[in-house]
């Protein structure tokens, strides 16, 4: 029997009267790369944020590696949620590096605070991941001294250093100047090749096609259609998907 990485069942999310997610059921296997596309406001970010419980679902469940964030009928337990979150890294559109810490300190912070590693060990691990994203030479720089692309690579290193089993990317390159997009995509691509489970929200359709095992089209809080990149991009089944892809071409 397969043992999925992420299982989402009948997920609903409302903000006040506004229902943003209207019943999402989704299973993501280990090592799978899932790309979520869809028009602005369709709920892509909200869904991604529910996957690590940054957003609390109004109804439905999310399981990571077979473990519920909040078991049905049970109460929200902050420590348990925090612990599960260490299994999934998240990369934000706006990087969200800690501005008062150097690159190295950014990557070390959670290793000492959350993983309880010694400073020496945390520094070793952090250095390794900074090397991985090609920024070991910038480890003593502050975020304000780095380009957007470098900041995002530091943010990726910060997530990876926790050694998560899956990574969530919410438009990781859309805040970047065009010439800096490539260096970040390269890091993500390399990660994909190493077999990391990934969920990506992106507007980079060619990248989606390249790394995605499965593409999900969302509209108005629902999964309209999902399939292999080839299938979804070349031969979309639903009108809404067709319209969306059509509009992208212009």
């Amino acid at each position: 029997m397969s043992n999925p990485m992420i299982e989402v069942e009948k997920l609903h999310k409302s903000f006040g009267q506004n229902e943003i997610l209207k019943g999402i059921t989704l299973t993501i296997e280990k090592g799978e790369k899932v790309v979520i596309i869809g028009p602005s406001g369709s709920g892509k970010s909200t869904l991604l944020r529910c996957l690590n419980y940054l957003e609390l679902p109004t109804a439905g469940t999310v399981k990571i590696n077979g473990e519920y964030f909040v078991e049905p009928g049970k109460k929200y337990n902050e420590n348990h949620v925090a612990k599960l979150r260490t299994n999934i890294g998240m990369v934000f559109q706006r990087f969200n590096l800690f501005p008062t810490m150097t690159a190295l300190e950014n990557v070390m912070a959670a290793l000492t605070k959350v993983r309880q590693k010694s400073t020496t060990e945390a520094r070793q691990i952090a250095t390794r991941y900074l090397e991985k994203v090609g920024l070991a030479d910038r480890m003593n720089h502050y975020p304000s001294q780095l380009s957007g692309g470098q900041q995002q690579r530091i943010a990726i290193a910060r997530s990876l250093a926790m050694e998560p089993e899956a990574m969530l990317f919410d438009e990781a390159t859309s805040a970047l100047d065009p010439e800096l997009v490539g260096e970040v995509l390269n890091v993500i691509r390399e990660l994909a090749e190493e077999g990391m489970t990934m969920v990506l929200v992106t507007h980079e359709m060619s990248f989606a096609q390249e790394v995605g095992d499965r593409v999900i089209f969302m509209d108005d809080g629902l999964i309209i259609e999902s399939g292999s990149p080839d299938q979804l991009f070349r031969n979309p089944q639903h009108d809404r998907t067709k319209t969306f892809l059509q509009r992208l071409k212009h």
Partner: protein
Amino acid sequence: MNLHFPTAFQELTPQLLKALGVVASLTLAGFALALVIAMLIALGRLSQSRFLDRILIVFLEIVRGTPLLVQLLYVYYVLPELIKLIMRIWIPDYQLTISAFTAGVIGLGINYGCYMSEVIRSSIAAIDKGQTEAALALGYTNRQAMWNIVIPQSFRISLPTLANYFIMMIKDTSLVAFITLQEIILTTQSYASQTFLTIESYTLAALAYLILSIPLGQGVRILERRLNRHV
């Protein structure tokens, strides 16, 4: 009219130095208490509880709506009486006196705590929510994210303002003269009334405050520049 600065300087300075010590310890203790109160109020107001927020707002209105002098008088003269009144329900001959110094610390601590809570609250609110989210996504608990990520950053924002409050408090310790604490003003007053060296005495008193506040003010400006280096 003859001025006698050398005489006044010789006789009053030793007393003023002692008073300066009182002012320094009063300010340090008062400011420490103010910081604790400010932090508690700020966190209370940022908590989920609407009820707590309402109560704290009422408390803030009362403190900010009355003069510091009235609060000092109240803490020194009224508060012990009130506590006695209540305690005597259980312990018939309950006694309580508080020193002018303690009353000064409490009065200054509460008053400044209220004003400083707004500084701290707004500096915490000014931190991008993305900072907390990044920390939570890394597995921090809410409390850890608050204390390790948000508060240190907000502290940088509020530090210069808080330091200015510290300097203001030094000056406001002069009001504690009204509840009999031998600080700079009361010391000066008694010397001036004995010697009639009014101009000399009060000039020296003013200088005593400046000795503290000018270097500290410079310090705050340097601090501000250093804190803004990377942000």
